[in-house]
């Protein structure tokens, strides 16, 4: 078993003419928390989406837990994985979205228990018991039967985190989890993420919450125009940025 949870080597991705990722090299240790910052359109979401194969990589190699994402190497050839295999790998990676994307036709409990029941084929009672515990863990005990529309943004995002955790992922991806929240609701979501980081979960967090990056991050990368401009220990990058672009970006968000 490798100590690296994620390894990217020269990852490229383009949409038509537009090059969203222009050679990303990156390593994330097991149990580490990597924070990603960068201006809008710099390719942060695209990179996260490549990691769980919601987006296909055009060139370069991307490994999760030692295995190539989306492909299988047999001899000296790469075979694209089918829908079922891709789904099986995605099940091991949790993802939390900026706009929550909870299933509106299911209760909070239903949202959390759905994938364990349908994907992992857990018995309803088992899945719902675990879902209740997870909702309690994110501070939502008693809200099991509430539909997403009736919850505040912060509560919805915490349900979304519980939903991802229900699959017992080895890696969690967060794509600006607090950007759609009112300022007073940001804290409750960050608290849950803090706790999660403390349990040793490997996390990649795209965020503009510099305070979170400093406190919970083991590493910080600054992306711009599809490349990693600067990487290092969060405290150093934040207080002593080396590149002009990092400096000007940080001066805007701090």
């Amino acid at each position, binding site marked *: 078993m490798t100590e690296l949870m994620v390894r990217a080597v020269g990852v490229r991705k383009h949409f038509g003419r537009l090059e969203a990722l222009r050679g990303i090299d990156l390593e994330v240790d097991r149990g580490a928390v990597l924070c990603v910052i960068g201006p809008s359109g710099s390719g942060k979401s695209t990179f996260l989406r490549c990691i769980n194969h919601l987006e296909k990589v055009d060139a370069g190699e991307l490994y999760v837990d030692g295995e190539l994402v989306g492909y299988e190497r047999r001899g000296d050839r790469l075979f694209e994985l089918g829908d079922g295999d891709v789904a099986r790998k995605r099940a091991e990676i949790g993802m939390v979205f900026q706009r929550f994307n909870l299933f509106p036709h299911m209760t909070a409990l239903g949202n959390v228990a759905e*994938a364990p029941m349908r994907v992992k084929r857990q018995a309803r009672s088992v899945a719902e018991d675990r879902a209740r515990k997870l909702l309690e863990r994110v501070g939502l005990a008693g809200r099991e039967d509430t539909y997403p529309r009736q919850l505040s943004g912060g509560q919805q995002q915490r349900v979304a985190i519980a939903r*991802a955790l229900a699959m017992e992922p080895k890696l969690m991806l967060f794509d600006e989890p607090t950007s759609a929240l009112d300022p007073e609701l940001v804290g409750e979501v960050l608290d849950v993420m803090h706790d999660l980081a403390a349990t040793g979960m490997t996390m990649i967090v795209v965020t503009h919450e510099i305070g979170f990056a400093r406190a919970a991050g083991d590493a910080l990368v600054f992306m711009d125009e599809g490349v990693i401009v600067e990487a290092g220990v969060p405290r150093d990058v934040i207080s002593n940025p080396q590149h002009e672009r990092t400096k000007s970006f940080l001066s805007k968000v701090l």
Partner: protein
Amino acid sequence: MTAPERAELPVVPVRHPGRWVAAGVVLVLAAMLGHWLVATKALRWDVVWHYLFDPTVLAGVRRTILLTIVAMAIGIAFGTVLAVMRLSPNPIVSGFSWLYIWFFRGTPLLVQLVFWYNLPAVLHSLSVGVPFGPSWLHTDPKTIITQLGAAILGLGLNEAAYMAEIARAGILSVDEGQIEAAQAVGMTRVLTMRRIVLPQAMRVIIPPTGNETISMLKNTVLVSVIGYAELFYTVQIIYARTFQIIPLLLAASIWYLFMTSILTVGQYYLERYYARGLAHALPATPMQRLRARLGIGPPVQGRVSAVQLSTRQEHR
């Protein structure tokens, strides 16, 4: 003016004299129509009443219901498959769906029905197997395409083309983020469609499907041309013998109205079911309101105060 002050003051609603005049005119016209219906001897309500529960008429009603249910079931099931095919990235799959919809929407239903009914006469045998190759199953088409078979086939296949477009619109109405979220928790494409996309698409699909079902119920009269004894054909047979055309058509109309009314109520409850989680609070159903008023059952939620009520009316 602050809110508490407003709640204490009596509210005088806006007056609408125009509406009162219109309502008066409508009432007078309705009374005239009612009088005409009751007093006109030629309508022969006694004959209408006599045939309303006549066993032959009831058999016709049963066949109409059967035909509607089976044809709609085929239409919905096959239509959903066509909709999913239409959205497939494979051009042959989506092309087939497009062609199917183009053909069945582009030709009159009546022509299709007569076509299906007469097809066995020109086909001598029907076989299942590899195209241009060996076949495994031979059958005489007359044994499968009966009057009922042709009716079901004609109505169902035609309906599938319309349902496909309705289902496609429903599927496309579901937010892209829902599909991503489902995939991110490890759902396959089929599972995502079944558990996440279609249940949400239902909200968009059901109102037009209700319309389609009501249309279908009435379109079953078209199969009278191929001699299947549904309700309309049944009353035609009777009045061809007794010449009581108007009373028998009235009896049939009463049945059609009764059946469409049932469908309308069914649609109302189905829409509520699929709206769960999507509206903050659903208004109480008529039954719930009745029970609450009689004091049997839970109190109605989301009752509005008089002030809120009057503001609501002002909005209209």
